[in-house]
């Protein structure tokens, strides 16, 4: 049990779970966030308010609570739907909770980015005979991306650390794994988990800086 290489390999293995949740959440929450953004900016008022209320609820309650509700909710409410049993079910439920939560945060960042683009950019496109679609994709989008890279980067970094909340519904991620050792009196694995997060965030920071530089050729 105290064999260092064994502990490290078990920590690494469990960190893979954090990485999977991170990757899956990003992959789905970014596009879903954009869909939510369009909903929250819809000209159809009931839809707009419905979406904004939903975003408010998700952003206004702890992610930990959302994990619990999403995982246990269907069973407690005797719904026809239920999560698959065992590890797979817990893993999928965790991803669903993370995706919904982060999509809402992203949607607000996207909305802020889109609303920050001056009306004149749309109007310039319009008087040049562009369609709405062309204006969005050819004129607005890249400017929005440039503006949102820093705040999205912040969320992405937060997500790295939030993945460890998946242990609340018994996903054996790295902190939970290290916790088993500390419960038995061995404390260093818990500290060691910090290094995994630091390295991951370090790499992300470099990537994000690179992206910001890449978009630095123009000013908005």
């Amino acid at each position, binding site marked *: 049990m105290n064999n260092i290489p064994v502990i490290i390999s078990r920590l690494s293995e469990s960190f893979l779970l954090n990485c999977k949740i991170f990757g899956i959440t990003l992959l789905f929450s970014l596009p879903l966030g954009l869909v939510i953004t369009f909903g929250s900016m819809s000209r159809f008022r009931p839809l707009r308010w419905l979406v904004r209320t939903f975003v408010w609820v998700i952003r206004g309650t702890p992610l930990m609570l959302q994990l619990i509700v999403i995982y246990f909710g269907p069973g407690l409410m005797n719904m026809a739907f239920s999560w698959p049993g065992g590890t797979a079910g817990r893993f999928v439920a965790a991803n669903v909770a993370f995706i919904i939560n982060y999509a809402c945060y992203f949607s607000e960042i996207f909305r802020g980015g889109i609303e920050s683009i*001056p009306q*004149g*950019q749309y*109007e*310039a*496109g*319009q*008087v*040049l*005979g*562009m*369609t709405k679609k*062309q204006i969005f994709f*050819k*004129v607005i989008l*890249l*400017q929005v991306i*440039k503006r949102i890279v820093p705040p999205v980067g912040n969320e992405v970094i937060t997500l790295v650390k939030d993945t460890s909340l998946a242990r609340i519904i018994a996903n054996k991620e790295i902190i939970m794994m290290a916790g088993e050792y500390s419960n038995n009196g061995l404390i260093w694995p818990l500290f060691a988990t910090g290094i995994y997060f630091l390295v991951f965030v370090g790499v992300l920071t470099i990537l994000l800086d690179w992206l910001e530089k890449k978009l630095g*050729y*123009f*000013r*908005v």
Partner: protein
Amino acid sequence: MPILEVIEIGKSFGTLQVLQDISFSLEKGETLAIIGSSGSGKTTLLRCLNFLERPDRGKIIVNNEVIFDAANPDTQRESEVRKKRLHFGLVFQNFNLFPQYTVLKNVTLALELLARERPNYKQEKKDILNEIQERAKTLLSQVGLSDKLEFYPHMISGGQQQRVAIARALALEPDILCFDEPTSALDPELTGEVLKVIRNLAERHTTMIIVTHEMDFAREVADRVIFMDDGVIVEQGSPEEVFGNPREERTKQFLTRYTKV
């Protein structure tokens, strides 16, 4: 036959009547200057012509075709507005260049997108795109920016940006090119280069409507002048008439105020 006829245009924002009974016409090749104090509705008028605002009343006729009639919803269909607004070009007060594109691409972008709608686009893509590039380069050399093709908007001065905006508008060959105070956002030492470009266009008989506070310039390049106040056309006529011998009291007052400063 006039190229443009504006007939009794009216526009309100809520209870605020911004344009009232605006009527005028413009011959092909003429330059019309619109003057008037701020808040008199000049920008709103240009925006109506460019379909950025919808007038509540009135008609707009270009080349004998009714392109807008407030009383006839058939003339206001969204699908046709995009095509119709190409009769007009608009140069904005604050340029509104696309920051992520080079000077050259700012001029070619809209042309390239429109070219996609041509039936022969797929087969002749290369030729079409080349032709667009050449056209844009010619226009940019006309406005004196041949050496800035690959620059991004933030790298050039305001005067240069406005000249790009003019080339961008010209690229679509509008029947009527509108300018909304094209030099108001510029430092005084940069207005000259932009005015020179517009003067050149006037000499080539480009049909233009210019909203401006540069009275000397308006007097010099305009074939006709409109003075607006409080949403109505107070006076219109030749530059000699409006500047040299204004009939209306309001015009006189405005001109004394403006020639003093």
